[in-house]
């Protein structure tokens, strides 16, 4: 039986006060397992991003708990939580957020540098991860010299360079054309996902649903349904 990677229990989040208060996530509970690729889908404003931020230790819920590999992340101090994210969670942002003034290798090495790893050793490790995503010959280029798909791969290399247990993808195909997006997610499913890693992807893109192990639909801040994917079927 797969081990639980993320356990969210009755998490709530609201913004604003009084009449302006918006209840973005309402009593959401779910589990995600190691070795699983979980998609979170739903219309804009359904609370996907807010929920993603809470389970990745970026946005504190108003109530409820989030456990990652049995650690209650919201009981940690802010420094400990930052340290936890640095070692346990990898992020691939929608717009990649690569530093345009750093080389591709330096961008990938950032999490290791934040972990105070030796500079040269971090760059060597970054090179290995660029090789995994097939960009070993782009290491010394700056991100603006790369295509959108290549930038996405660099962001993936950065996310996995510190060997995190959890990978969070925010709209990974939003800035890519259909084929490139599909290829990227296929690559992630084949090469990055393993039994010691859980990947959570927030997406609107139904063309990549085929790679999901489970698809969690959100509407109006609640989980509307959880389906096994076509791969299991």
């Amino acid at each position, binding site marked *: 039986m797969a081990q639980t990677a993320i356990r969210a229990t009755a998490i709530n989040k609201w913004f604003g006060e009084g009449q302006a208060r918006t209840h973005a996530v309402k009593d959401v509970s779910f589990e995600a397992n190691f070795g699983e690729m979980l998609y979170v889908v739903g219309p804009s404003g359904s609370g996907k*991003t807010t929920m*993603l*931020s809470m389970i*990745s230790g*970026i*946005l504190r819920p108003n109530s409820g708990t989030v456990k990652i590999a049995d650690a209650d992340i919201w009981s940690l101090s*802010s*420094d400990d939580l*930052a*340290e*936890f*994210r*640095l*070692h346990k*969670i990898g*992020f691939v*942002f*929608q*717009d990649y*957020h690569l*530093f345009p*003034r*750093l080389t591709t290798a*330096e961008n990938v090495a*950032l*999490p290791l*540098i*934040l972990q*105070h*790893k*030796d*500079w040269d050793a*971090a760059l060597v490790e970054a090179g290995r991860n660029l090789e995994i995503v097939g960009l070993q010959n782009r290491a010394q280029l700056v991100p603006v010299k790369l295509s959108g798909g290549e930038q996405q791969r660099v962001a993936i290399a950065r996310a996995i360079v510190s060997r995190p247990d959890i990978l969070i993808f*925010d709209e990974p195909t939003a800035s890519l054309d259909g084929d490139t997006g599909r290829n990227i997610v296929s690559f992630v499913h084949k090469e990055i996902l393993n039994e010691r890693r859980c990947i959570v992807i927030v997406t609107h893109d139904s063309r990549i649903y085929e790679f999901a192990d489970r698809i969690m639909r959100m509407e109006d801040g609640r989980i509307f349904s959880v389906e096994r994917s076509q791969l299991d079927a």
Partner: protein
Amino acid sequence: MPGTLRIAYKLLVNDRAKFAALLVGITFAVFLMIEMTSLFAGILSRSSSTVINIGASMWVMDPAVQTVANTIPLPDYVLDEVRSIPGVKYAVPLYSGGALLKLRDGTYQAANVVGLDDTSLFGRPQVISGNIQDLFAENAFIAIKDAEFYKLHDPKIGSDFELNDHRGVIVGIARVASSALFGVPTLYTTYSRALQYIPSTRFTISYLLVEPKSTADVAPIKQRVTAAGYLALTREEFVQKISDFYMYQTGIGTNMMLMTVISFIVGLSISGQTFYTFILENSDKFGALKAIGAKGRELISMILFQATFVALTGYGLGVGLCAFLIWMARWRLPDYAAMITFRNLGTAFVMVVVIAAISSYVGVRKVLRIEPFDIFRG
């Protein structure tokens, strides 16, 4: 260097346009601040040139004297009074005044004439051509080879001139530590000859130069001179009094201070604005770093490092530029009055540190307010 600071360094210098704008802002501000304060220091130094060049330990003068050029003659009995003070080793009179010379070609040239005590020649300059003893010869003057020397038509030993219908002869060329402020050449002669050649008032002694027996005697001498209705100052006190006059009782100090403050504001505006834009443009990246796991203090150290690096580099360039331009100016204008002092450098450094602190404070505030959640929200 820690990796995070190396990242900060690369983010800064690889953004060449902003890095250049930051450096230009700080360099320009430092250049202006040091140039202004150096000009003022040069003027102040030259305003006290006679005091520095004569080198007496103590000076006795009328209490109303404000600068060394603004002499108020002392009666002869003051010399006797001062010589009678127990702590005085010796005291000699000094004449300092302006004169109008008629040069060999018939042109007139204003000059400053210093009359040294006939017996001791105390305060004599360093003779580089001729012999100091020749000052006792008939009509003898020594010309000071400073930035104004050429105005005497580059005299040589034996050159002559007229001073108030008296013939004067150059018997030596000498140099002094500091040129005068007012752009006129300086001649040294004996005290008695100065009185003989230059029309004078009833009282004739410009200053009394006093050497105390020991430093412990300075205070009693000052008390006795004060009791007699005059003022005794040490060399340093007299230099300070002259500096205070130019700084606080003329417009020079205020103007220089205003220019320095304006330079500071210009530097602060350029670097503060550019640095803020730099942070603003990278705010999403800093947010991403926060999301990945960078702690607030690491981001602060990155920003402080960037601000410090720019400030110190700009400071070095500004000082270098200022020194170069002063050197260039002196090459073309030997009497260019500017002097870079440690105090000027220190003042500019403090101001640059303030510029860096304010710029980085703005950046730090912005970065600390970035919510990683906003990165997800786009």
